[in-house]
C-alpha cells in the first residue's frame, strides 16, 4: 500500500490534489480483485465438490457425457465427476410412464348426437367391415435401455420432460397433445398406426363386444413389434383398451343388437330349461314304467305262487266234498263283497217264476248324504 502511495505521489500527483480520489480508486480496485478472487475460489471449490456430485433417483438413470461423448450410465447410487462444461449429466425417466390415445369425436365430450363426423374434429377408426368405431386407450411403457433411448430419439435437453423438444414447431394431435419430434410423439404415432392397422382387419361387432380382448392383444402385439423395429430402448409394458363404442348416431342400433343377443341367449336358455325338465321328467317316467313292470312281475309271480299254494290246500278238501267246498267259497266271497261299506246299491231281484219282486238296499246311506240332508234341514229352519 505504501509502495502504491509513493508511486502515485511521485509519478501522477506531485501536487497532491488527487490523492484522496486516487486512494479511493485503488481501494475499490483492490476490493474488486478480492471479490473476483473469492468468486473464483468459490467456483473452484464448487467445481471440485458438490458441483460434480449427483445421486441417481430410484425411478431415473443418469447418463454422463464427457465433452458430449457418452462416458457411463448409472442406475443407482451417488457419483462425482467434474461438472459442466467437461461433463454433462443427463437424467432419463426409467419407471413406467403412461400415455393416453383417443380415437373419439367431439360429440363424446359435448354429449350430442351427430348425423355425421367432421374430419379433423372428430376422430374415429375404420373397421374391417367399413364401419366406424371410437376407442380410447392407455399405453404403459418403460425405458429399458436409457443410453439407447437417448442416442436414438430426439429427446429434450432434459429427457425427463418429454413434451418439449422443438418449442417453435409444434402441432396439436387428436388427444390435445402438443406434438414435437420427440419420443412421446413417436410413440403416439406408432400406436395410432398399430390401432388403425389392426382395426382395419377386425369387424366392428368384434371390437365392440365379443372380440375385444383379442383385438386389444393384436394391437399390443403390433405396437410392440413396431417399437422393437425402431430399436430405441423402450419396452411396451401394457396396452389397455379403456373404451370401445359406436358413434352416438348408431348407439341405439347397437344397443338393440345387444338386446337381441341377450334375447337369443334367453330363448336358448328357456329351451335348455325345457330340455332339462323334459329329460328329468322322462327319466322319472321311465323309472316309473320300469318299476310298475317290475312290480307287476313280482306281483304276478307272488300271486300265482299264493294261488297255487291256496289251490293245493283247497284241492284236498275239494276231493272229499266238492259241493260243500264250492258253496262255502262262493257264499263267503259274495258275503265279503256285499259287506263292504260303500255308496253302491245292490238290487236283489227275484227269479222270473217268483211272481213278485224284492228290492233291498243292503248298504247304509252314505255319511256325506246324511250330512247334506242335515244341513239342508238346518238351513230351512234358519230361514
Amino acid at each position, binding site marked *: 500500500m505504501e509502495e502504491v502511495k509513493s508511486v502515485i505521489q511521485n509519478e501522477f500527483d506531485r501536487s497532491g490534489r488527487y490523492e484522496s480520489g486516487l486512494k479511493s480508486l485503488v481501494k475499490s480496485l483492490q476490493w474488486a480483485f478480492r471479490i473476483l478472487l473469492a468468486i473464483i475460489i468459490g467456483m473452484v471449490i464448487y467445481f471440485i465438490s458438490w458441483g460434480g456430485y449427483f445421486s441417481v433417483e430410484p425411478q431415473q438413470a443418469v447418463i454422463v457425457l464427457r465433452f*458430449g461423448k457418452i462416458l457411463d450410465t448409472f442406475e443407482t447410487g451417488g457419483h462425482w465427476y467434474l461438472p459442466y462444461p467437461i461433463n454433462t449429466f443427463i437424467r432419463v425417466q426409467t419407471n413406467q410412464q403412461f400415455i393416453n390415445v383417443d380415437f373419439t369425436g367431439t360429440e363424446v365430450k359435448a354429449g350430442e348426437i351427430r348425423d355425421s363426423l367432421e*374430419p379433423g374434429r372428430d376422430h374415429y377408426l375404420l373397421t374391417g367391415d367399413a364401419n*366406424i368405431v371410437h376407442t380410447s386407450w392407455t399405453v404403459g411403457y418403460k425405458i429399458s435401455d436409457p443410453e439407447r433411448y437417448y442416442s436414438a430419439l430426439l429427446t429434450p435437453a432434459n429427457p425427463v420432460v418429454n413434451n418439449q423438444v422443438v418449442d417453435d414447431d409444434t402441432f396439436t394431435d387428436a388427444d390435445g397433445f402438443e406434438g414435437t419430434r420427440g419420443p412421446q410423439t413417436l410413440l403416439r404415432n406408432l400406436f395410432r398406426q398399430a390401432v388403425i392397422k389392426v382395426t382395419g382387419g377386425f369387424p366392428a361387432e368384434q371390437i365392440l363386444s365379443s372380440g375385444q380382448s383379442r383385438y386389444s392383444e393384436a394391437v399390443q402385439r403390433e405396437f410392440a413389434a413396431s417399437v422393437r423395429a425402431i430399436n430405441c430402448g423402450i419396452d411396451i409394458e401394457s396396452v389397455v383398451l379403456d373404451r370401445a363404442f359406436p358413434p352416438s348416431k348408431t348407439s341405439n342400433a347397437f344397443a338393440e*343388437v345387444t338386446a*337381441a343377443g341377450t334375447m337369443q341367449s334367453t330363448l336358448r336358455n328357456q329351451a335348455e330349461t325345457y330340455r332339462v325338465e323334459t329329460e328329468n321328467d322322462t327319466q322319472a317316467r321311465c323309472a316309473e314304467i320300469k318299476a310298475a313292470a317290475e312290480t307287476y*312281475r313280482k306281483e304276478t309271480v307272488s300271486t300265482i305262487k299264493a294261488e*297255487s299254494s291256496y289251490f*293245493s290246500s283247497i284241492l284236498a278238501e275239494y276231493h272229499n266234498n266238492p259241493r260243500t267246498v264250492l258253496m262255502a267259497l262262493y257264499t263267503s266271497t259274495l258275503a265279503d263283497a256285499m259287506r263292504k261299506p260303500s255308496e253302491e246299491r245292490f238290487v236283489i231281484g227275484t227269479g222270473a217264476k217268483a211272481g213278485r219282486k*224284492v228290492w233291498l238296499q243292503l248298504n247304509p246311506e252314505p255319511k256325506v248324504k246324511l250330512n247334506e240332508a242335515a244341513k239342508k234341514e238346518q238351513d230351512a229352519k234358519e230361514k
Partner: protein
Amino acid sequence: MANGNFFKHWPTMLLGVIVAAILLVAVFSFQLGQTESAVVTTFGRSGEVNEPGLHFRWPFPFQRVYRFDRRIRCFSGSSGSLEETRTSDGHNILVGIYINYRISNAQAFFVSLETPTKAESQLNSWMRGFKNAAFGQYRFNQIVNTDAKQMKLAEIQQKIKDDLTKQTAGYGIEIVSVGINNIGVPKTISAKVFERMIAECKKVADGYIAEGNREAREIRIKADSDRTQRLAEAEAKAKEIRAQGDGEAAKHYSVFKQNPELAEFLRKLDSLREVMKGRTTLLLDTNTAPFDLLKPGAETLKTVAK
C-alpha cells in the same frame, strides 16, 4: 526485485492464466455431442465432423459451426391430411401419415436443405404427393378388410417409404419408417356409413332373434324326440319285464292241471272280488245263493228239511 514481485503477485498471475485459458478454449474449440454431427464452414467450404468430443476450430469469421442432431425425429406431415385421397376403385378417403427420419449426412443436409424446418417443409410436400400416389393404386377393400391376406396397408406404407427414401437420397436424410396416423372418410360418407351400420345392426339383431328361436325350437324338438324314444324304450323294457313275470308265473300253472274246474271256479271268485271293489250296481237273481233263501216257499230250506 522482479522475482520478488512475481512471487508476491502469483495469485493475480494465476487468475490471469486461468481466465485466458478458458477464453482460448471457448473461442478455439467446440464440443460435439454423441448424437450430433457438425458442419464446419471455412470461408464457404464445408466439412463434416461426426466424432463426439472436443474439437478445434478457428473463431468467426474464419470458421462457422452448424450442429445437426442425428437422432430420429417423428414428423407428422400436416399438409394434405384432411384432403380427400381417391382409391383405385373410386372411394374417397382421408389419410394422415407420419415419418420417422434422421439426418444421416449432415453436410449433404446442410448444403441442400440447410435447416430441419426447411427440410420438413419439403418433406411435407413429398409426403403428400407420395401418399396420394400410393393410395391411388389400391382398392378401398385393400385398406380395410377382415381378411388379412387382402389387406395391403403395410404394403402401402412400405411403398411410400420406398418413394420417400429414393427422393431424399441426395438430401442427407434417412427415412426410418412411415406410418398412417389417421384414416377417415368425408363427412357425407360418414353419414351414409351410419345409415348402413344401423341397417346392419337391425339385420344382425333380427338374425340373433331368428337364430335364438331356431335353436330353441331345435332343442325342444330334440328333447321331445328323446322323451318319446326313451319312453318307448322304457315301455319295451317294461313289456319284457312283464313277460318275464308272466313266464315265471306260467311255471306255477301246472298245479292247476290237477283240477281245472276248481281252478276256474277259484279264479272266478277272485274276479268277483275284484269287480266288487269298485262302484258297482249288482243285480242278482233270487235263485242265486244265498239269496235263494228269500224265495217264496224257501225251496232250499225244504230241501234241507228233507
